[in-house]
């Protein structure tokens, strides 16, 4: 299958808060694909993107764009319209995952635990008065809380609130990134990331990665400065718990409708309950990211996996073109 893939365009960078991470992810993906003998063009997308794609006839496009530009489904829609084979989730699934509160609701309906939360726009505080709303949040959810932008990644705008007087600032920090914030009860426990890989035979959970930041918080800095976090792969879990964690992650991937690769972030509390936090449509693929770590831990060669994903995407596109009368095409 890999032999069919000769040219891949890796889209990285873009304009988002996570541009720097995206560029690093893109470079690493490009390097891995090149080692498979695939010609790679790294493209920082701009207004000429679709003209470039039309003129160059890449076998597959891999959008490695973190942040809204790559993860909110818009780009997937455009690539579908353009008839370009691409790696990653279709637009509908991307939209569901990108909006954290929506993803939580979907999974709660499937019986997956997710921390109790509220979702509040900044206008709400203006309309109903900040003091009263904050008081209500604290009274009903208690402390500690995790406040984050309802859409975003890389822990940007995320604050752990342990004292009431921190809550207002935490809201301001979250709203700096996005106008809606998700406020969750903080679950204390073991942080786990489960990467999901689907090369055409259904989603498979890679070994769970246990995350132990040296500072105690898996912040942006802890994620992207090498050395600041220790990882255990596979996570130090009982077989039963490891299975449960993997099953939850696969279920999350399936319920949301994700495709090819994703990463599901979870916490296991001290009673062994597994809590869903979020699903990532375009997981980080940098030198310090968890999906590549999980792949290598499972004995996979990154380049081989990435090339296989490319081949899968190309085949999917061909099948879809053959199935052009199907009204559901493109919305899976």
């Amino acid at each position, binding site marked *: 299958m890999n032999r069919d893939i000769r040219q891949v365009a890796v889209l990285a*960078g873009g*304009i*988002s*808060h*996570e*541009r*720097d*991470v995206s*560029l690093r992810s893109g470079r690493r993906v490009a390097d891995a694909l090149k080692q498979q003998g695939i010609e790679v063009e790294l493209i*920082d997308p*701009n207004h000429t993107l679709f003209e470039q794609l039309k003129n160059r006839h890449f076998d597959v496009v891999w959008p490695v764009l973190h942040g809204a530009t790559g993860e909110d489904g818009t780009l997937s829609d455009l690539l579908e319209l353009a008839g370009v084979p691409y790696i990653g989730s279709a637009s509908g699934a991307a939209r569901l995952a990108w909006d954290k509160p929506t993803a939580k609701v979907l999974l709660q309906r499937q019986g997956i635990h997710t921390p109790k939360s509220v979702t509040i726009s*900044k206008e709400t*505080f*203006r309309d109903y*008065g*900040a*003091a009263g709303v*904050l008081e209500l949040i604290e009274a009903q959810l208690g402390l500690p809380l995790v406040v984050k932008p309802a859409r975003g990644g*890389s822990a*940007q*705008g995320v604050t752990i609130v342990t004292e009431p*007087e921190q809550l*207002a*600032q935490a*809201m*301001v*920090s979250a*709203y*700096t*990134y996005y106008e809606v914030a998700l406020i969750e009860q903080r679950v204390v426990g073991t942080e786990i990331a489960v990467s999901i890989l689907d090369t055409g035979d259904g989603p498979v959970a890679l070994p769970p990665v246990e995350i132990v930041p040296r500072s105690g918080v898996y*912040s*942006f*800095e802890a994620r*992207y*400065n*090498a*050395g*600041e*976090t*220790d*990882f*255990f*792969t*596979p996570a*130090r879990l009982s077989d039963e718990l490891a299975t449960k964690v993997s099953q939850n992650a696969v279920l999350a991937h399936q319920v949301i409708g994700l495709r090819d690769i994703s990463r599901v972030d979870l916490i296991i509390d001290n009673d062994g309950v597994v809590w869903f936090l979020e699903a990532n449509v375009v997981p980080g693929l940098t*030198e*310090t990211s968890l999906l590549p*770590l999980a792949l290598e*831990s499972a004995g996979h060669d990154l380049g081989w996996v990435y090339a296989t994903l490319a081949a899968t995407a190309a085949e999917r596109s061909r099948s879809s073109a053959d199935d052009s009368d199907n009204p559901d095409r493109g919305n899976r």
Partner: protein
Amino acid sequence: MTTTPHNSTNFDPWFANYADRTAQLSASEVRALFAVASRPEVVSLAGGMPYVSALPESLVQETMQRVVRDFGAAALQYGGGQGILPLREQILEVMELEGIHASPDNVVVTTGSQQALDLVSKLFLNPGDVVLAESPSYVGALGVFKSYQADVRHIAMDNDGLVPDALRAMIQRVRNEGKAIKFLYLIPNFHNPAGITLSWERRVEILEIAKANNILILEDNPYGQLYFDEAPPRAIRSLDSEQVIYLGSFSKTFAPGFRTGWALAPHAVREKLILATEAAILSPSNFAQYSISEFLAHSDWRKQINTFRDIYHERKNATIAALEQYLPKLTWTNPNGGFYVWLTLPDQVDSKAMLPRAVKELVAYTPGTAFFADGQGTQNIRICYSYPTPERIHEGIRRLATVVNNELDLLDTFKPVTAPIRQIKPEDRVISPPPNIG
């Protein structure tokens, strides 16, 4: 990456091995945001990049062709640690413009004046030693001082520059603590980031204070020739050759790509500087030195500086006009040269926390906190007008105004709940933009 039998992985197997002085050498979330500044859609008011497009390409080409033709083997070879003599002599000519008379023997050519900062710091700073600096100060210098584990103490400035009484008070305070003050670091002309120029009277007074207290002055002057209406006062070094180490640079008067600056130091210090630079880099780039020497010898470099002045003057005016139009209630400095305007935001706004919002609005700036070692600066923004065109500056300030107003709206929403909303905490990580954004 290393993996132990317990399957523990750390992406930096040498994490425990780094020297203590590297503790702050890790990138922050804020610094990562500057990646967007390289996109043309974003108006960057952040990086201090000179407008090198104002250099005629033909001039640079001819210069470098001459270097290869006339000095090929020498230019491509290692040189001496002190730098080539012709350039050192020409540097004297440049320093004459600042009122400095010196010997080429006391000039040490460096890889940018940034390297000179590093060398001086390496020579003088033990961990815990005190460096006195203006408030705010140049982010690149603060980074160097921090890397040598210095204790930086900021001293107040006003519209005439460093306040002498504040300097006296700080010296007394540090002496009472029993700590060693190694030098006073100053950017006297068109200060980076504040845009302020130290008055002549203050230069004289500060020199007297330094002499009375046996404190070396490190005078950093990359912008002195980029004045708009009138030249700034003579350099402090023009008054005293033993109390001052003077740093100069060709980055702004020619081009930063050549990475060439210099230190003018008293004899004994100069000797150590040469040994230190040889230990670090063997020698500054001969090719770069010959290029600059040829440029100075064969081109009308004073006219080129005039060209730069006109461009930066126009851009400064565009900045001030845009600020007056879009942010009339704020305050800012109005420099008579250089690259920077120092903007002061309303009290409750945090410029560092606001940066993600600015990125969304496609404008980038450097938060004021980058220019302090002690967590100050949350209320300030450094605006650099050297690189964008006047039209882009106008648009950038317009976007910045949107950002500020949105931030004020948001803070206003939460105002009844907390005061102050801003927590001042020294930033350990690197939050300044990399040098090459524009």
